[in-house]
């Protein structure tokens, strides 16, 4: 039902059931929020979105208050602005005064609101909070002192990811976001995805920064410093320099990495192509030889820990392929080192990932050989942005260069790994060819594209009708796994991306990630796929050469040793 309302003395039409916040947004009126999350039920905790409604004594939270016919609303009246200012002052009353040193000093929602609302003096007594910083996790740092208890991280962890590692604990002034029984993140069920960081309005949740390790390695004359960058980085890095979302800066990024002093710049999309060769062959082999089905993708490390913890009976369904990061890591320290005659112990291998869970993955004991980890340090997109700014390099203003050969060549199949459904699409393109010897009629497999949480399709491959599904976010993966557990048997292959939208929306991506930006970033990947000619992983000449020179064929003994892994059950 349509209804007429008045918003700041402007007559507007609204739908029944719509919230004041959503009508205002449509009308171009910006009401601040701190606890509001797109696509989830409003929590109404923070009260910063309060507005004045004629005829009501109290202010109402616009995020959860529905409009009604004839309603007259004032979103920025003196009373509203005063209330918002008071709220911010209360939040600052027990917030540390260390903005100058804070990881989020350039993009803190609390600091920005204090500015917008004209908080220029401390009116309330300052109580320095005294919580312990949780540094235990290889991926995340939790500083409850900077927490304003908006609860977004808790909701994302539980409602989007189905993990529920953190919770609002305690009461009153001593409330904090923490882990049951005063445990820390490392001993919790946290899967390191970092979606909580993207949700956090302040610096209470940040990635564990490893920038200094990289700087030290770059300045160490003994070290040969190699870097790889994931498919999703080139379409998001520019945002760290204030550029709109969805601009690909692949060549500029390669040039920038060289300027900083990296000896070799490789593209993880190359090993994405290699993953498709191995994983596609593994799927075919499982179907032909009666292996465990449905096969589950294994490139998203948050998802891997999730399966090990919550669905240990499904570890046998996970593809044994290492993730592209770890394949590249193994190739660099074991093949590249040998070929270039460099001592693997002297190679410092950095990877730029959209992901905080990759930091955990790189540290898994099975991801190395002879006490040498295959990947030494993982930096997120945000950290790379910081590092580039520190080195005075502006990504907007640098001549593009090509990645290094041979592990820099990629097809666009490897590139679309960065979007949800991309691994599936790439695998189907090559799998179809491996089974039938022919090319698919249409390489664009639209049913697996887009931001829906679960996408399914049936693909005819020779005589077989292949059942495929794509889950984006772990709460959606739970739905699929529970169906399989209950006996659903029409699925052969399931792609799971931990983060909702895939790696372009990863927990290591720029602060301010939202649905519009995720769409623009994915579009940038698909645009590359549209405009280039090498679109199937098996066409990658360097991948072919790697098989000729070293690996033999997919699933060979050498492949198994280098490119495949195993999983453990992790009781929670």
């Amino acid at each position, binding site marked *: 039902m349509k209804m007429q309302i008045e918003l700041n003395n402007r007559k507007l039409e609204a739908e029944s059931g719509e919230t004041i916040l959503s009508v205002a947004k449509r009308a171009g009126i910006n009401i601040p929020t701190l606890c509001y999350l797109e696509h989830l039920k409003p929590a109404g905790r923070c009260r910063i979105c309060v507005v004045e409604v004629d005829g009501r004594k109290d202010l109402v939270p616009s995020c959860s208050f529905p409009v009604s016919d004839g309603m007259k609303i004032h979103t920025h009246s003196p009373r509203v602005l005063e209330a918002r200012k008071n709220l911010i002052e209360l939040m600052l009353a027990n917030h540390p005064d260390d903005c100058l040193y804070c990881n989020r000093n350039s993009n803190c929602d609390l600091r920005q609101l204090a500015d917008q609302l004209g908080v220029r003096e401390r009116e309330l007594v300052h109580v320095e909070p005294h919580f312990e910083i949780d540094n235990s996790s290889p991926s995340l740092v939790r500083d409850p002192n900077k927490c304003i208890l908006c609860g977004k991280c808790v909701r994302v962890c539980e409602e989007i990811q189905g993990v*529920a590692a953190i919770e609002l604990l305690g*009461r009153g002034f001593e409330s904090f976001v923490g882990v049951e*029984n005063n445990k820390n993140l490392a001993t919790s069920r946290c899967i390191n995805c970092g979606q909580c960081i993207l949700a956090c309005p302040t610096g209470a949740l940040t990635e564990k920064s490893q920038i200094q390790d990289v700087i030290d390695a770059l300045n160490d004359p003994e070290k040969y410093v190699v870097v790889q960058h994931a498919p999703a980085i080139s379409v998001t890095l520019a945002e760290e320099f204030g550029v709109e979302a969805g601009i690909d800066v692949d060549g500029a990024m390669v040039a920038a990495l060289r300027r900083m002093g990296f000896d070799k710049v490789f593209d993880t999309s190359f090993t994405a192509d290699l993953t498709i060769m191995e994983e596609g062959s593994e799927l075919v082999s499982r179907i032909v030889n009666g292996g465990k089905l449905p096969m589950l993708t294994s490139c998203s490390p948050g998802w891997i820990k999730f399966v090990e913890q919550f669905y240990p009976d499904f570890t046998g369904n996970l593809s044994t392929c290492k993730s592209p990061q770890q394949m590249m890591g193994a190739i660099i320290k074991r093949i590249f080192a040998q070929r270039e005659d460099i001592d693997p112990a002297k190679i410092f291998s950095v990877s730029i990932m959209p992901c905080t869970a990759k930091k955990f993955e790189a540290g898994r004991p099975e991801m190395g050989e002879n006490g040498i980890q295959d990947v030494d340090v993982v930096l997120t997109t945000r950290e790379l942005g910081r590092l580039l700014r520190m080195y005075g390099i502006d990504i907007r203003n640098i001549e593009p260069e090509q990645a290094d050969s041979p592990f820099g060549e990629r097809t666009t199949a490897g590139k679309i790994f960065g979007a949800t459904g991309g691994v599936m699409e790439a695998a189907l393109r090559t799998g179809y060819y491996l089974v039938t010897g022919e090319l698919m009629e249409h390489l664009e497999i639209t049913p697996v594209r887009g931001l829906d949480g679960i996408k399914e399709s049936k693909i005819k491959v020779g005589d077989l009708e292949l059942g495929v599904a794509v889950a984006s976010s772990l709460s959606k993966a739970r739905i699929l796994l529970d169906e399989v557990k209950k006996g659903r048997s029409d699925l052969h292959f399931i792609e799971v991306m931990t983060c909702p939208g895939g790696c372009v929306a990863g927990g290591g991506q720029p602060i301010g990630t939202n649905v519009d930006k995720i769409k623009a970033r994915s579009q940038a990947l698909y645009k590359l796929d549209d405009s280039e000619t090498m679109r199937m992983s098996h066409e990658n000449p360097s991948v072919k050469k790697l098989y000729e020179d070293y690996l033999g064929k997919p699933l060979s003994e050498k492949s198994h040793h280098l490119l495949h892994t195993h999983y453990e059950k992790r009781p929670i």
Partner: protein
Amino acid sequence: MSTTPTPFAANATDYKIPDKVMSKINEIASQYPEKNSAMLPALHLIQDEFGWIPPSAVRQLADALDTTPNKVYAVVSFYTMFNQAPVGKYHIQVCRNVSCSLLGSKHIVDHLTSKLGIQPGQTTENKKFTLSLVECLGACGTAPVMMINDTYYENLTSGKVDEILNTLA
């Protein structure tokens, strides 16, 4: 300052909720559309059994009520009436809310801390007394008030506190 007792048995993970208690919990849970509605009565049963809420019981309860350990722990850590660590034979809980504060509960607490030699949240070495500060005990008319185990003591003065402590063996 934290007022809940700090755990002195942090690794006490082997407490198993007895079958008879568990079946009572299941029975209560079956009365609600959502099992986790039985959270509070279930926690009371567990505390009656162990005298506190052991971490292993939090996990068992989470499974029984189809919820997560964090959700149970959120409730346990919200209410001062749930002990997160074993308490002494006599658990002294002094109200710290408005009416009691206005009528001098701080003096009562100071008296108790000096007399027992422990701070709020601590237990005496002989495990006889635990001192906690708690929220409103619902007896504002007779403030200041404290509870020792399940017994109320009202209109407190330092002298009265001494008399009460003397009666406890």
